[in-house]
C-alpha cells in the first residue's frame, strides 16, 4: 500500500510541473501588455520631456519581464540570446522581422544603434521645429522592417538633409546610417536561421520566479485593482464554497437516493417517471431557468404572491444588529434560487451513474446468495449494495469537487454572487490575466490533488483494486 501511495505521489509531482509549464506559457500568449494593463505607463501624447521608454523599462523590470522566460530557449542561431532584454515590444518585433529577413544580428544591431545615434544627434543639435519632418522619418525608420519602405524613408531623410543648408552637417551621420543598412542587406546570413541553438539561462528566469511565488501562495497583483490575486481568490472562494458546497451535498445526496430507488424499481412506472423528469430538467439550461425564476419569483410584477425571493446577491441590507435567526433566514432565502439552479442540472447524470452501478450490483451472485441466506433487504442494501455501488461514484466525486471550488460562472453572474465563477469571468473580461491564470493553476492543482486522494481511497476501500499486480 505504501509503495502504491509513493508511486502515485511520484507521478503527481511531474504532472504538476508539466501543468504549471503549460499554464505559464499560455499566460505568455494572453493578449495585452502587462505594463499597459496595470496602467503603469504615462500617456505618450502628454509628457514630451519625459523619457517614456525609460519609464516603461523601469516598470517592465519591476515586473521581472526583462528576464528570460524559461530555464532554456531553443531558437535559431541567427537570434541573439538576449532579445528578451528589449523592453519595447514594437521594437522587439521589428528586430525579429529583420532577423528573419536577413539573419545577421551583428549588422542589424549596428543599424538599430545608428538610427538611435542619428536621432540623438538631431535632437541635441537642432530645435524641434527645425527637425520636425526629419524626426518623424527617423521614428518611422525605427518601426519599419520592410526593405523597400526602409529605402524610401532613407531617401526622404537624404532629401531633407540636402535641401536644408542648416541640416547639411548631418551628412556624415546619414552616410553611416545608410551604410549600416546596406551592410544588413549585403552581409545577409540567412543560413543561420536554419541552425538550431539551445541557450541555458539558469534559475533566474520568469517561470522559476512565477512557480516559486505560486507555491508559497503569492499569485501576483490584479491588474484591475492592484490587490493581491490571492486576497481576491480568498474572498471569492468563501462565497463559492457556501453556494456550491450546499448544492453539491444536495445534488449528490438526492442522486444517491434516486439512483438506488430507481434501480430497485427498475422498469416500473415510477422509475420511468423519475428518469424522464430528470432528463427533461437536464435539457433545460440553468441560465434560462435562473433568469425565469428571477423574473417570475422575485418581484410582484406577475402577482403579489409570487414575490417570494430576493432578486440577487447572498444577503440583504438588514437593520442594525440583526439577530442570528434573522441573518440566517436572510441567507437561506437568498440561497434558494441559485442552489436550485445548481442542483438540478447534474442530477440526471449523477442519478444515472448511481442507478447503473446499483443495477450492476443487484445482478451479482453474492446478492442472490445473501437473499438466499435470508438476509433482510435493509441489511443487504446497507452492507452489500450501497457500499459496492458507491465505488464508481468516487470517480464522479473526483470530477465534481474541484468544480465546487471553481464556482459556477453562469449562476454567479445571473444572481450577482461574488464567487470564483464571477471572479474568473470578470477577470477574463478585464484581461486580468494574473488572476485568471492563478485560478487556472489552482484549479489544476486541486483537480490533481483530488485525483490523487481518490486513487488512494480506491486502494484503501475497494478490495477489488489489486495493488500488487496492478500496473500503477
Amino acid at each position, binding site marked *: 500500500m505504501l509503495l502504491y501511495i509513493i508511486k502515485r505521489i511520484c507521478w503527481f509531482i511531474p504532472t504538476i510541473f508539466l501543468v504549471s509549464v503549460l499554464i505559464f506559457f499560455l499566460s505568455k500568449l494572453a*493578449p*495585452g501588455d502587462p505594463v*499597459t494593463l*496595470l*496602467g*503603469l*505607463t*504615462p*500617456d*505618450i*501624447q*502628454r*509628457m514630451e*520631456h*519625459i*523619457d517614456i521608454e525609460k*519609464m516603461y523599462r*523601469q516598470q517592465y523590470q519591476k515586473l521581472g519581464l526583462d528576464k528570460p522566460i524559461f530555464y532554456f530557449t531553443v531558437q535559431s542561431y541567427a537570434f541573439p540570446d538576449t532579445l528578451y532584454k528589449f523592453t519595447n515590444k*514594437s521594437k522587439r518585433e521589428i528586430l525579429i522581422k529583420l532577423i528573419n529577413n536577413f539573419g545577421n544580428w551583428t549588422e542589424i544591431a549596428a543599424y538599430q544603434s545608428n538610427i538611435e545615434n542619428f536621432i540623438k544627434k538631431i535632437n541635441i543639435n537642432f530645435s524641434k521645429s527645425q527637425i520636425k519632418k526629419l524626426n*518623424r522619418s527617423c*521614428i518611422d525608420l525605427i*518601426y519599419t522592417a520592410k526593405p523597400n519602405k526602409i529605402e524610401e524613408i532613407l531617401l526622404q531623410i537624404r532629401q531633407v538633409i540636402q535641401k536644408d543648408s542648416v541640416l547639411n552637417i548631418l551628412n556624415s551621420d546619414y552616410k553611416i546610417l545608410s551604410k549600416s543598412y546596406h551592410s544588413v542587406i549585403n552581409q545577409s546570413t540567412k543560413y543561420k536561421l536554419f541552425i538550431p541553438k539551445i541557450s541555458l539561462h539558469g534559475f533566474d528566469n520568469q517561470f522559476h520566479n512565477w512557480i516559486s511565488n505560486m507555491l508559497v501562495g503569492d499569485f501576483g*497583483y*490584479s491588474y*484591475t*485593482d*492592484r*490587490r*493581491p490575486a490571492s486576497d481576491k481568490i480568498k*474572498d471569492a472562494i468563501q*462565497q463559492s464554497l457556501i453556494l456550491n458546497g450546499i448544492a453539491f451535498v444536495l445534488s449528490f445526496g438526492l442522486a444517491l437516493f434516486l439512483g438506488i430507488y430507481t434501480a430497485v424499481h427498475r422498469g416500473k412506472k415510477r422509475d420511468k417517471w423519475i428518469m424522464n423528469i430528470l432528463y427533461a430538467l437536464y435539457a433545460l439550461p440553468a441560465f434560462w431557468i435562473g*433568469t425565469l425564476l*428571477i*423574473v417570475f419569483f*422575485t*418581484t*410582484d*410584477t406577475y402577482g403579489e404572491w409570487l*414575490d417570494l425571493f430576493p*432578486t*440577487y*446577491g*447572498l*444577503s440583504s*441590507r438588514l437593520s442594525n444588529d440583526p439577530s442570528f435567526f434573522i441573518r440566517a433566514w436572510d441567507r437561506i432565502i437568498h440561497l434558494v434560487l441559485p442552489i436550485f439552479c445548481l442542483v438540478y442540472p447534474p442530477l440526471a447524470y449523477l442519478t444515472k451513474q448511481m442507478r447503473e452501478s446499483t443495477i450492476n450490483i443487484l445482478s451479482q451472485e453474492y446478492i442472490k446468495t445473501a437473499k438466499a441466506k435470508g438476509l433482510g433487504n435493509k441489511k443487504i442494501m446497507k452492507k452489500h449494495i450501497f457500499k459496492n455501488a458507491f465505488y464508481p461514484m468516487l470517480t464522479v466525486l473526483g470530477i465534481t469537487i474541484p468544480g465546487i471550488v471553481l464556482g459556477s460562472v453562469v449562476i454567479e*453572474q*445571473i*444572481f*450577482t*454572487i*461574488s464567487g470564483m465563477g*464571477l471572479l474568473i469571468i*470578470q477577470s477574463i*473580461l478585464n*484581461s486580468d490575466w494574473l488572476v485568471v491564470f492563478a485560478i487556472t493553476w489552482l484549479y489544476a492543482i486541486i483537480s490533481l490533488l483530488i485525483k490523487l486522494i481518490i486513487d488512494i481511497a480506491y486502494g484503501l476501500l475497494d478490495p477489488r483494486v489489486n495493488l500488487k499486480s496492478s500496473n500503477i
Partner: protein
Amino acid sequence: MKCNFQLFLLFTLVGLFSCVMPESNSDVTIAESEIPTEVIVHAPRELNTLFPIFSKTAGEKYISNNIFFYLIIGDPKTLENVPIIVKSVPVVEDFEEGLAITYEIRPEAEWDNGTPILASDFDFTLKMIANPRVDTPVLRSFLDFIIGFKYYPDNPRKFTLYTKDKYFQAIDASSYFIFPEYVYDPKGLMKGFKLEDLKNADKLEDLNKNAKINEYADFINAPEKGKDINFLVGGGPYKVTSWKTGQEVVLEKKEDWWGDQLIAEIPQIAAYPKKLIYKIILDETVAVTAAKGGEIDVLSEVSPRDFVELQKDEAFSKKYNFHSPIATRYDYIGFNFQKEKLKDVRVRKALAHLANISEIIKVSYNDLATPTIGPFHPSKDYYYKELKTEYEPEKAMELLDEAGWKDTDNDGVRDKIINNKKVDLSLDLVYNINNDITKNTVLIFQEAVERVGVKIELKGSEYRTTVQNALNRNFDLVLLSWQNSIYLDDPKAVWHSDSDVPGGYNFLGFRNDEIDVLINKIRFSNDKKARNKMYKRFQEILYKEQPQIFLACPKERIIISNKYDNAESSLIRPGYFERYFTLKK
C-alpha cells in the same frame, strides 16, 4: 480636469449619462419631507476603488465625485464653470511661456475634522500625483503641464499655478480634486519636496531612489486603501460607510456639511439624499427585474432593445422616467492608411457612401442614436452639420470604377492590377463581437458593400482584443467608439501625425500637414472666433480625406424613478447627479 478625462476614459464603451440638476434661479429651500432617505443606483460593473487617482473606470470616478470635490465643476444645464471649492473662477494671466492661474479657496470649505481646506492641500494633491513612484502615470501625464506652485503668506487659501505653455484647456485641466493632506500624508513625507523639483526630469533618477518618496509611494499605492472607508475622505458631502465587495457601496451624507450653508448661493453644490447606495448587478435582466420590484431607482447603460421594451411596458413606465440625451462619444469605421487598397481617397469615399446610416440607426441602435459628420459632438457651435456623406451606392460604384477597381474576371469581386499582380478588393473588418450594436452594424454594412463588388471579411473578437488589434494596426477596417467632449476638443491624440507612433491613438496612420498645423494652433488659441474657424476647416479636411466613416453618436439610455424631482437630463457626465435628487412634493 473634466474634459481631459476624455483620453483617460479612452475607448471605454461605457454607456453614459443624462443628468439631474438643481434649479439655479428658483427657490432652493427643500423641506425635510422632500429629502430622500436613500437613492439606489445600479452599478453595472464591479467597483474596485473609489480613490480617484487610481480609478480605472468612469463609473468609479462618478461615485467619487460625491466624496471628493473638484475646485470647479460644470453647470449641468449651461455647461458653464461653477466654482465649488474655490471662491470664483480663477484669474488667468500670461506668465513667461505659459500661464499663471490664481485660485482662492472659499473660507467655508473645511475637512471632516473641522480644519479649513487650504492651498497647502492642493499643493500636496499635486505633489502626491507628481511623486514618480505613485502608480498613477496616466494622471501624472495629464497634470504634467502644471510646473509651479505659489503660496501667498498673507492668505493661506490663495495659490497660483504656473503652466509650461498656454494650453487652451489649462483652466479646466487645472481644476482637479483636492485631497486632505492630514489623511493622505499623515507622516508629512511629501512636505519636504517642492512641486518644481518633482517635475524636474533631471532629478527623476534621484527621486526614484529617495527613501521618503518610496515610503510615501508604498503607503499610498497599497491596494486595500481604495476600499478603506476610513481612507476615502474628501471635501464632498458624502462619506463611505459600507462596502460589500461585489454587492454594494453605501455613501452617507455628512452631518453639518460645510456646503449646505451655500446652497442658496451655489445651487450646484447641493446634496440632498441622506444615503446613496450603489448596487452592483452585472446582469441586465436582473437589474431590470430589481427595478420592476422597486429595488433600484436609477438604471443606466440599459441596452437599446430593453430600453425601448421598457418604454412600452405600461406598468413600468408609470413608475420610471426615460432619458436619452446624445452621448459624448461617436461610433466609426476607421480605415488603415498603411493598406495599399485604402490609400486612394476614392475607395474610402466609396465605402462611406455605402454606409446606410439611417438603416444602421434604426436597426442597430433602435433609433437611439443620431448621425454625426465628424469627431465633434453635434451640440458644438463649430459642428459642421452641412458636411454630410449620403448613402449613394451608384456614386460609390462610380468612384470605385474611377479608382480602377473593376470586376474583370466576373467573380463578383472588383479587382485591380497592383505591382503587376491582380488583387481583389477584399477587406477585413475588425469589430467587437460582444456588442449587439456593432454586430448588427457590420452586417448591414457588409451587405451593402458586397452588393457593389467589395468583399468584406468580418473579424469579430471580444472588446479588448479588438482594441489591441486596432493599436497593433492588424486591420483594414475597424469599428470602434471614441469619447469626445462637450467642452473644447483637443484633436491631437487621434489626428496629429505625432500620434502616429506605436501605441499612439492615431492608429489609422492618418497624416495631413494642414491638420497638424491646425491642431497646433487650436491647442493654444484663446480666440473663440478664430478657433471655431479652425475647427470648421479641420472638419472640412476630414470630410475631404474620409479617414473614417462617421456612423453615429449613440443616445444614452437612463431610467430614473419618477418619485424624484430634479431629474432632467444634461450632457455632462455622469449624467444622473443623484445627489441633487429630491422627493416630489
